[in-house]
């Protein structure tokens, strides 16, 4: 699937992650930009975790920007999933 709308999920609070999604043209692939307060300690882990969610949701063309303030894995997964769903227009009951 390919995101249709700009979307976001999360906050800039400590222990949360802000995930922004920008639609890109079909065929331009995945671009994931991560900044994090724990980049030194968890860079690989963040990349893997975000890409796993994108894999499961079959998102191949997307620009995802993640600004992390030390979120735990379940938080990261939930925020990415919600942002993607919003960008697809399939998230119900929220913004």
């Amino acid at each position: 699937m390919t995101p249709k709308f700009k979307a976001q999920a999360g906050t800039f609070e400590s222990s949360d992650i802000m995930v922004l999604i920008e639609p890109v043209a079909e065929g331009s692939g995945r671009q994931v930009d991560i900044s994090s307060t724990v980049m030194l300690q968890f860079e690989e882990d963040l990349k893997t975790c975000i890409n796993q969610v994108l894999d499961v949701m079959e998102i191949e063309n997307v620009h995802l920007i993640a600004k992390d303030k030390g979120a735990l894995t379940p938080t990261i997964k939930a925020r990415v999933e919600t942002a993607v769903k919003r960008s697809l227009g399939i998230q119900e009951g929220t913004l």
Partner: protein
Amino acid sequence: MKNALGVEIPEYIEGLGELQPYQGVWKSIIEDEVPSTNISRTLKAKKAHTSKFCDSLEEAIKKCEPFDGMTVTCHHHLRGGDGVLMQTIEILDKMGIKDITLASSSLTSAHDGLVPYVENGMITKIFSSGIRGRLGEIISMGKLKHPAIIHSHGGRVRDFLTGRIKPDLSVLAASAADEEGNSTGSHGPSAFGSMGYADIDARYSKNVIVVTDNIVEYPCVPSTVRQHFVDHVVKVDSIGDASKIASGTTRITSSPMDLRIARIGATVIEHSGLFKDGMSFQVGAGGASLAVAKFLREDMKRKNIQGSFMIGGVTSYGVDMLEEGLFKAIFDVQSFDAAVSTSVLNNPKHVEITCDQYANPNNCGAMTNKLDVVVLGALEVDVDFNVNVITGSSGEIRGASGGHSDTASGANLSVIVCPSFRGRLPIIMDRVHTVVTPGESVDVIVTERGVCVNPAKPNLAAALKKAGVKVVDIRDLKKEVDSMTGVPAKKELGDKIVALVEYRDGTIIDVIKNVTNLE
């Protein structure tokens, strides 16, 4: 050579001399021993009815005949509002003085201005109980010529008495002073409370300048630093940023996490066997640590307990507890908020003490040795109960040793309160980045997920379990936390020693290596 914690300590460091390895909390303290090095104070006579007034700090410093390689000392009672230390360094720089050893009792956010003077080699050595901000970063990057020495509050006094720190010039800020230099922090527009750290500087420095924005008619009473130690007196327009010097009252945290940890911490104290009439108590001023006082206050009222004394690090919260009669006295080496000054000035049960009396390990009456319970914070702890309060998660210098190791060593019960992880970084490590307080002097670590009791205190663990406290093995708790946060990638530190952590007895407990990945 290796110290008792297995840390490789150099035998000699250029500019600092020979080093002694840490051997254990009480190993080097020999009762009634007179140390071989014992510095006497400098005598400096003046004739009758002469004036000590100087028109400017510059003039006063010139009279002290500054020289290359000198040691300059200050106190940090002005906290983040201090304007005096920077003025002093700027004046010395203008006079072309180089190779300065700076020995302030601590360094705060007000001292980032020191960065260029460290980088250009004007300041080549630093002794301090704390280093923060950009200054901490550049020292971590190895920009200071000789390794910085991080000492405890009590250790600083011992450093003066044994000649480790030999002060040539001490510039001491006061919120009120008279023409002879009798001075205090307890009143005046910039009142900051206790002036306890400045006492040792005044007594032992070759040249003492008192700087104030508020000259009062002779005599200035009450006064802390007394006239027979003071060479020069200077009136300046400002000793710093009054809004940061006198920062209102300290509020109890509203963070649910900190409150939860504090509630558990207070319960630990209640069931420690020490919660009874005559208990003495010290608490830090930060988040969860101060919040323990809130719950302890409630518990003491509920159980009708009257404590003996509090020491600190005093906040207006402590003053409230004194006024309610929960404690008989406060011994105050350092006041944390403006509201405390009034109490220091007016309440005879609020006793200002010197840092020597507070925590010097080599005198015969340190208050920390009378402590029952102390509650302290931590940046990191480890499975051996060692505590780090100086370096951050990247190994950078960003904190303060303060009275942490002093109080932990003396207290019957030292309680560390900290979350089990902060922003995904686990707080419990296999080994902390830097040991400031050795596990031997730490009894309990309180987290929101459980309480870890030092295996050396099995009776305490049993008592807490019996009281329904969730006591967990620290290694099990570490596993639990790691499984939630993931295990952080190991970061490579360099192999250059940028700072030494001096234990309160003067031995070296840990070394801090340079950080290679700081911007």
